[in-house]
Protein backbone atom coordinates (compact mmCIF):
# COMPACT_ATOMS: atom_id res chain seq x y z
CA UNK A 1 0.00 0.00 0.00
CA UNK A 2 2.86 2.38 0.77
CA UNK A 3 3.93 2.08 -2.87
CA UNK A 4 0.64 1.44 -4.64
CA UNK A 5 -1.16 4.42 -3.10
CA UNK A 6 1.27 7.20 -4.08
CA UNK A 7 1.79 5.62 -7.51
CA UNK A 8 -1.98 5.67 -8.22
CA UNK A 9 -2.14 9.36 -7.28
CA UNK A 10 0.91 10.34 -9.33
CA UNK A 11 -0.16 8.40 -12.44
CA UNK A 12 -3.64 9.90 -12.18
CA UNK A 13 -2.30 13.43 -12.16
CA UNK A 14 0.04 12.63 -15.03
CA UNK A 15 -2.71 11.09 -17.15
CA UNK A 16 -5.17 13.88 -16.33
CA UNK A 17 -2.67 16.45 -17.63
CA UNK A 18 -2.22 14.54 -20.91
CA UNK A 19 -5.94 13.96 -21.47
CA UNK A 20 -7.09 17.39 -20.26
CA UNK A 21 -9.16 16.09 -17.35
CA UNK A 22 -7.58 18.32 -14.73
CA UNK A 23 -10.84 20.01 -13.66
CA UNK A 24 -12.49 16.62 -13.19
CA UNK A 25 -9.51 15.41 -11.21
CA UNK A 26 -9.60 18.43 -8.95
CA UNK A 27 -13.35 18.04 -8.31
CA UNK A 28 -12.94 14.34 -7.59
CA UNK A 29 -10.68 15.07 -4.63
CA UNK A 30 -13.35 17.10 -2.85
CA UNK A 31 -16.08 14.68 -3.90
CA UNK A 32 -14.16 11.68 -2.57
CA UNK A 33 -13.71 13.25 0.82
CA UNK A 34 -17.37 14.19 1.18
CA UNK A 35 -18.41 10.75 -0.20
CA UNK A 36 -16.51 9.11 2.65
CA UNK A 37 -18.24 11.31 5.22
CA UNK A 38 -21.66 10.38 3.78
CA UNK A 39 -20.73 6.71 3.57
CA UNK A 40 -19.44 6.70 7.14
CA UNK A 41 -22.68 8.12 8.48
CA UNK A 42 -24.68 5.27 6.97
CA UNK A 43 -21.94 2.85 7.89
CA UNK A 44 -21.79 3.81 11.56
CA UNK A 45 -25.53 3.22 11.87
CA UNK A 46 -25.38 -0.20 10.23
CA UNK A 47 -22.27 -1.22 12.15
CA UNK A 48 -23.93 -0.34 15.46
CA UNK A 49 -27.15 -2.13 14.52
CA UNK A 50 -25.42 -5.39 13.62
CA UNK A 51 -22.86 -5.22 16.43
CA UNK A 52 -25.80 -4.89 18.82
CA UNK A 53 -27.67 -7.83 17.28
CA UNK A 54 -24.49 -9.89 17.29
CA UNK A 55 -24.13 -9.29 21.02
CA UNK A 56 -27.59 -10.82 21.50
CA UNK A 57 -26.82 -13.78 19.20
CA UNK A 58 -23.67 -14.60 21.18
CA UNK A 59 -25.63 -14.90 24.44
CA UNK A 60 -28.30 -17.20 22.99
CA UNK A 61 -28.49 -20.72 21.60
CA UNK A 62 -28.56 -19.28 18.05
CA UNK A 63 -24.77 -19.11 18.30
CA UNK A 64 -24.25 -22.76 19.24
CA UNK A 65 -26.78 -23.73 16.57
CA UNK A 66 -24.86 -21.83 13.85
CA UNK A 67 -21.56 -23.23 15.08
CA UNK A 68 -22.91 -26.78 14.93
CA UNK A 69 -24.14 -26.46 11.33
CA UNK A 70 -21.09 -24.64 10.01
CA UNK A 71 -18.41 -26.51 11.96
CA UNK A 72 -17.46 -29.12 9.30
CA UNK A 73 -17.19 -26.45 6.61
CA UNK A 74 -15.33 -23.93 8.77
CA UNK A 75 -12.92 -26.55 10.18
CA UNK A 76 -11.93 -27.38 6.62
CA UNK A 77 -11.62 -23.74 5.53
CA UNK A 78 -9.88 -22.47 8.67
CA UNK A 79 -7.88 -25.41 10.10
CA UNK A 80 -5.57 -23.12 12.14
CA UNK A 81 -8.44 -21.41 13.95
CA UNK A 82 -10.20 -24.63 14.98
CA UNK A 83 -9.56 -24.15 18.70
CA UNK A 84 -10.12 -20.37 18.70
CA UNK A 85 -13.75 -20.28 19.82
CA UNK A 86 -14.29 -16.50 19.70
CA UNK A 87 -12.85 -16.29 16.20
CA UNK A 88 -14.98 -19.23 15.02
CA UNK A 89 -18.11 -17.55 16.38
CA UNK A 90 -17.40 -14.32 14.54
CA UNK A 91 -16.51 -16.24 11.36
CA UNK A 92 -19.80 -18.19 11.59
CA UNK A 93 -21.82 -14.97 11.76
CA UNK A 94 -19.76 -13.49 8.92
CA UNK A 95 -20.36 -16.58 6.75
CA UNK A 96 -24.11 -16.63 7.36
CA UNK A 97 -24.39 -12.87 6.70
CA UNK A 98 -22.55 -13.21 3.39
CA UNK A 99 -24.80 -16.09 2.44
CA UNK A 100 -27.94 -14.08 3.14
CA UNK A 101 -26.54 -11.07 1.28
CA UNK A 102 -26.44 -8.84 4.37
CA UNK A 103 -23.12 -7.12 3.71
CA UNK A 104 -23.77 -4.67 6.53
CA UNK A 105 -23.72 -7.53 9.04
CA UNK A 106 -20.83 -9.36 7.37
CA UNK A 107 -18.41 -6.45 7.79
CA UNK A 108 -18.55 -6.00 11.60
CA UNK A 109 -18.48 -9.80 12.10
CA UNK A 110 -15.53 -10.14 9.72
CA UNK A 111 -13.57 -7.35 11.41
CA UNK A 112 -14.29 -8.90 14.80
CA UNK A 113 -13.00 -12.23 13.48
CA UNK A 114 -9.80 -10.47 12.38
CA UNK A 115 -9.31 -9.13 15.93
CA UNK A 116 -9.83 -12.58 17.45
CA UNK A 117 -7.53 -14.27 14.91
CA UNK A 118 -4.87 -11.63 15.59
CA UNK A 119 -4.76 -12.68 19.27
CA UNK A 120 -3.39 -16.09 18.25
CA UNK A 121 -1.33 -14.86 15.32
CA UNK A 122 2.38 -15.61 15.94
CA UNK A 123 3.55 -12.90 13.49
CA UNK A 124 1.58 -9.76 14.36
CA UNK A 125 2.50 -7.75 11.27
CA UNK A 126 1.60 -10.53 8.83
CA UNK A 127 -1.76 -12.01 7.82
CA UNK A 128 -2.21 -15.56 9.16
CA UNK A 129 -3.51 -18.41 6.98
CA UNK A 130 -7.02 -18.14 8.38
CA UNK A 131 -7.05 -14.38 7.84
CA UNK A 132 -6.15 -14.84 4.18
CA UNK A 133 -8.99 -17.32 3.71
CA UNK A 134 -11.39 -14.98 5.52
CA UNK A 135 -10.44 -11.99 3.35
CA UNK A 136 -10.64 -13.95 0.07
CA UNK A 137 -14.07 -15.36 0.96
CA UNK A 138 -15.30 -11.88 1.83
CA UNK A 139 -14.07 -10.47 -1.49
CA UNK A 140 -15.77 -13.22 -3.51
CA UNK A 141 -18.76 -13.32 -1.16
CA UNK A 142 -21.33 -16.02 -2.07
CA UNK A 143 -24.66 -14.37 -2.86
CA UNK A 144 -27.71 -16.51 -2.23
CA UNK A 145 -30.22 -13.66 -2.44
CA UNK A 146 -28.90 -10.85 -4.66
CA UNK A 147 -31.21 -8.12 -3.33
CA UNK A 148 -29.56 -5.15 -5.07
CA UNK A 149 -29.51 -6.73 -8.54
CA UNK A 150 -33.17 -7.71 -8.27
CA UNK A 151 -34.12 -4.24 -7.01
CA UNK A 152 -32.28 -2.50 -9.86
CA UNK A 153 -33.90 -4.73 -12.47
CA UNK A 154 -37.34 -4.22 -10.93
CA UNK A 155 -36.84 -0.44 -10.87
CA UNK A 156 -35.91 -0.47 -14.56
CA UNK A 157 -39.13 -2.28 -15.50
CA UNK A 158 -38.02 -5.89 -15.89
CA UNK A 159 -41.01 -8.24 -16.22
CA UNK A 160 -39.16 -10.95 -14.27
CA UNK A 161 -36.57 -9.24 -12.01
CA UNK A 162 -35.62 -12.47 -10.25
CA UNK A 163 -34.63 -14.24 -13.50
CA UNK A 164 -31.12 -13.02 -12.78
CA UNK A 165 -30.70 -15.29 -9.75
CA UNK A 166 -29.47 -18.45 -11.47
CA UNK A 167 -26.74 -16.72 -13.54
CA UNK A 168 -25.62 -14.90 -10.38
CA UNK A 169 -25.48 -18.19 -8.44
CA UNK A 170 -23.35 -19.86 -11.10
CA UNK A 171 -21.03 -16.87 -11.42
CA UNK A 172 -20.63 -16.27 -7.67
CA UNK A 173 -20.07 -19.99 -7.06
CA UNK A 174 -17.39 -20.17 -9.76
CA UNK A 175 -15.63 -17.17 -8.22
CA UNK A 176 -15.84 -18.47 -4.67
CA UNK A 177 -14.62 -21.98 -5.53
CA UNK A 178 -11.71 -20.48 -7.47
CA UNK A 179 -10.91 -18.29 -4.47
CA UNK A 180 -10.92 -21.24 -2.04
CA UNK A 181 -8.81 -23.49 -4.27
CA UNK A 182 -6.24 -20.79 -5.07
CA UNK A 183 -5.97 -19.76 -1.42
CA UNK A 184 -5.42 -23.37 -0.34
CA UNK A 185 -2.73 -23.71 -3.04
CA UNK A 186 -1.10 -20.39 -2.11
CA UNK A 187 -0.91 -21.38 1.55
CA UNK A 188 0.51 -24.81 0.71
CA UNK A 189 3.18 -23.29 -1.59
CA UNK A 190 4.83 -21.25 1.16
Amino acid at each position, binding site marked *: *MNYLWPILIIISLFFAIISGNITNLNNSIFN*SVSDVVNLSLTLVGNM*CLWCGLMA*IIKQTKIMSFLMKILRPLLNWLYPDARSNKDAMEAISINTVSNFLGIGNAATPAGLKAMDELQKENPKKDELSNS*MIMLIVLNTTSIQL*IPTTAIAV*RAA*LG*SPMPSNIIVPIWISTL*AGTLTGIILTKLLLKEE
Partner: protein
Amino acid sequence: MIYFAAIIIPLIIAIIVFVGLYENKKVYDLFCDGAKEGIKMTVKMFPTLIGIFLAIGMLRSSGLLDFISNIIGNFLKYVNVPTEIIPLAFIKPISGSASLALATDIIAKYGTETRIGMIAATIMAASETTFYVIAIYMNQIKAKKSRNVIIPAIIADIVSIVTAICIIR
Protein backbone atom coordinates in the same frame (compact mmCIF):
# COMPACT_ATOMS: atom_id res chain seq x y z
CA MET B 1 -39.31 -12.71 -4.79
CA ILE B 2 -39.19 -8.98 -4.09
CA TYR B 3 -41.40 -9.68 -1.09
CA PHE B 4 -38.98 -12.38 0.03
CA ALA B 5 -36.01 -10.03 -0.31
CA ALA B 6 -37.82 -7.36 1.69
CA ILE B 7 -38.83 -9.61 4.56
CA ILE B 8 -35.51 -11.29 5.24
CA ILE B 9 -33.81 -8.61 7.39
CA PRO B 10 -36.84 -7.74 9.55
CA LEU B 11 -37.43 -11.47 10.02
CA ILE B 12 -33.85 -12.12 11.12
CA ILE B 13 -33.96 -9.24 13.61
CA ALA B 14 -37.28 -10.50 15.00
CA ILE B 15 -35.98 -14.07 15.37
CA ILE B 16 -32.87 -12.85 17.21
CA VAL B 17 -34.81 -10.77 19.73
CA PHE B 18 -37.46 -13.49 20.10
CA VAL B 19 -34.90 -16.17 20.98
CA GLY B 20 -33.23 -13.72 23.40
CA LEU B 21 -36.55 -13.02 25.07
CA TYR B 22 -37.43 -16.73 25.20
CA GLU B 23 -34.12 -17.51 26.90
CA ASN B 24 -34.72 -14.74 29.46
CA LYS B 25 -31.82 -12.54 28.37
CA LYS B 26 -31.75 -8.76 28.90
CA VAL B 27 -32.10 -8.26 25.17
CA TYR B 28 -32.14 -4.46 25.09
CA ASP B 29 -29.12 -4.04 27.39
CA LEU B 30 -27.15 -6.56 25.36
CA PHE B 31 -28.06 -4.73 22.16
CA CYS B 32 -27.06 -1.28 23.38
CA ASP B 33 -23.85 -2.58 24.88
CA GLY B 34 -22.88 -4.39 21.68
CA ALA B 35 -23.83 -1.45 19.47
CA LYS B 36 -21.10 0.69 21.06
CA GLU B 37 -18.51 -1.37 19.30
CA GLY B 38 -19.88 -0.30 15.91
CA ILE B 39 -18.76 3.27 16.56
CA LYS B 40 -15.21 2.20 17.37
CA MET B 41 -15.04 0.07 14.21
CA THR B 42 -16.22 2.88 11.97
CA VAL B 43 -13.80 5.38 13.49
CA LYS B 44 -11.00 2.91 12.93
CA MET B 45 -12.01 2.47 9.27
CA PHE B 46 -12.39 6.17 8.50
CA PRO B 47 -8.77 7.13 7.63
CA THR B 48 -8.44 4.04 5.38
CA LEU B 49 -11.65 4.96 3.59
CA ILE B 50 -10.41 8.51 2.93
CA GLY B 51 -7.16 7.11 1.55
CA ILE B 52 -8.82 4.60 -0.78
CA PHE B 53 -11.58 6.90 -2.00
CA LEU B 54 -9.07 9.66 -2.75
CA ALA B 55 -6.85 7.42 -4.88
CA ILE B 56 -9.74 5.65 -6.64
CA GLY B 57 -11.55 8.95 -7.26
CA MET B 58 -8.44 10.45 -8.85
CA LEU B 59 -7.83 7.34 -10.94
CA ARG B 60 -11.39 7.37 -12.30
CA SER B 61 -11.64 11.09 -12.98
CA SER B 62 -8.26 11.21 -14.75
CA GLY B 63 -9.76 9.06 -17.52
CA LEU B 64 -7.04 6.44 -17.17
CA LEU B 65 -9.46 3.61 -16.34
CA ASP B 66 -11.60 4.34 -19.41
CA PHE B 67 -8.47 4.53 -21.53
CA ILE B 68 -7.22 1.11 -20.40
CA SER B 69 -10.63 -0.54 -20.65
CA ASN B 70 -11.02 0.80 -24.20
CA ILE B 71 -7.75 -0.77 -25.26
CA ILE B 72 -8.62 -4.12 -23.66
CA GLY B 73 -12.17 -3.96 -24.99
CA ASN B 74 -10.84 -3.66 -28.53
CA PHE B 75 -9.02 -6.95 -28.14
CA LEU B 76 -11.82 -8.78 -26.35
CA LYS B 77 -14.54 -7.97 -28.86
CA TYR B 78 -13.00 -10.54 -31.21
CA VAL B 79 -13.87 -13.32 -28.75
CA ASN B 80 -17.55 -12.33 -28.48
CA VAL B 81 -17.24 -10.21 -25.33
CA PRO B 82 -19.48 -7.15 -25.53
CA THR B 83 -17.28 -4.02 -25.25
CA GLU B 84 -19.94 -2.18 -23.27
CA ILE B 85 -19.33 -4.21 -20.11
CA ILE B 86 -15.51 -3.94 -20.02
CA PRO B 87 -15.49 -0.69 -17.98
CA LEU B 88 -17.83 -2.35 -15.47
CA ALA B 89 -15.56 -5.38 -15.15
CA PHE B 90 -12.71 -3.00 -14.38
CA ILE B 91 -14.47 -0.80 -11.87
CA LYS B 92 -16.19 -3.67 -10.01
CA PRO B 93 -13.23 -4.76 -7.82
CA ILE B 94 -12.32 -1.12 -7.11
CA SER B 95 -15.48 0.80 -6.27
CA GLY B 96 -18.86 -0.50 -5.12
CA SER B 97 -20.83 2.71 -5.61
CA ALA B 98 -19.31 3.42 -9.03
CA SER B 99 -20.03 -0.11 -10.28
CA LEU B 100 -23.64 0.10 -9.07
CA ALA B 101 -24.11 3.40 -10.93
CA LEU B 102 -22.41 2.09 -14.07
CA ALA B 103 -24.35 -1.20 -14.06
CA THR B 104 -27.64 0.69 -13.63
CA ASP B 105 -26.72 2.91 -16.63
CA ILE B 106 -25.87 -0.10 -18.79
CA ILE B 107 -29.05 -2.00 -17.87
CA ALA B 108 -31.19 1.10 -18.46
CA LYS B 109 -29.55 1.73 -21.85
CA TYR B 110 -29.62 -1.81 -23.26
CA GLY B 111 -32.70 -3.23 -21.50
CA THR B 112 -33.18 -5.58 -18.57
CA GLU B 113 -33.64 -8.77 -20.63
CA THR B 114 -30.85 -8.24 -23.18
CA ARG B 115 -27.56 -10.13 -23.03
CA ILE B 116 -25.61 -7.01 -22.06
CA GLY B 117 -28.17 -6.03 -19.41
CA MET B 118 -28.13 -9.50 -17.86
CA ILE B 119 -24.32 -9.68 -17.84
CA ALA B 120 -24.10 -6.24 -16.21
CA ALA B 121 -26.54 -7.24 -13.43
CA THR B 122 -24.63 -10.48 -12.83
CA ILE B 123 -21.19 -8.86 -12.67
CA MET B 124 -22.53 -6.22 -10.29
CA ALA B 125 -23.98 -8.81 -7.90
CA ALA B 126 -21.63 -11.77 -8.09
CA SER B 127 -18.74 -10.42 -6.00
CA GLU B 128 -17.75 -7.81 -3.45
CA THR B 129 -15.54 -4.75 -3.88
CA THR B 130 -12.23 -6.60 -3.59
CA PHE B 131 -9.82 -3.72 -2.89
CA TYR B 132 -12.10 -2.18 -0.29
CA VAL B 133 -12.49 -5.46 1.62
CA ILE B 134 -8.74 -6.14 1.61
CA ALA B 135 -7.92 -2.60 2.75
CA ILE B 136 -10.36 -2.47 5.68
CA TYR B 137 -9.62 -6.03 6.88
CA MET B 138 -5.87 -5.42 6.84
CA ASN B 139 -6.30 -2.05 8.52
CA GLN B 140 -8.28 -3.68 11.34
CA ILE B 141 -5.21 -5.51 12.66
CA LYS B 142 -2.62 -3.09 11.26
CA ALA B 143 -1.08 -5.87 9.15
CA LYS B 144 1.87 -4.80 7.04
CA LYS B 145 2.49 -7.99 5.06
CA SER B 146 -0.39 -9.18 2.89
CA ARG B 147 1.28 -12.44 1.74
CA ASN B 148 -0.21 -11.87 -1.75
CA VAL B 149 -3.82 -12.19 -0.59
CA ILE B 150 -4.74 -10.06 -3.60
CA ILE B 151 -3.78 -12.76 -6.13
CA PRO B 152 -6.48 -15.36 -5.29
CA ALA B 153 -8.99 -12.53 -4.72
CA ILE B 154 -8.45 -10.95 -8.15
CA ILE B 155 -8.29 -14.24 -10.05
CA ALA B 156 -11.57 -15.26 -8.38
CA ASP B 157 -13.10 -11.96 -9.58
CA ILE B 158 -11.90 -12.59 -13.13
CA VAL B 159 -13.28 -16.15 -13.10
CA SER B 160 -16.66 -14.95 -11.86
CA ILE B 161 -16.83 -12.24 -14.57
CA VAL B 162 -15.74 -14.64 -17.33
CA THR B 163 -18.30 -17.18 -16.11
CA ALA B 164 -21.03 -14.52 -16.32
CA ILE B 165 -20.04 -13.66 -19.90
CA CYS B 166 -19.90 -17.34 -20.93
CA ILE B 167 -23.20 -18.53 -19.45
CA ILE B 168 -25.37 -15.61 -20.60
CA ARG B 169 -25.95 -15.98 -24.34
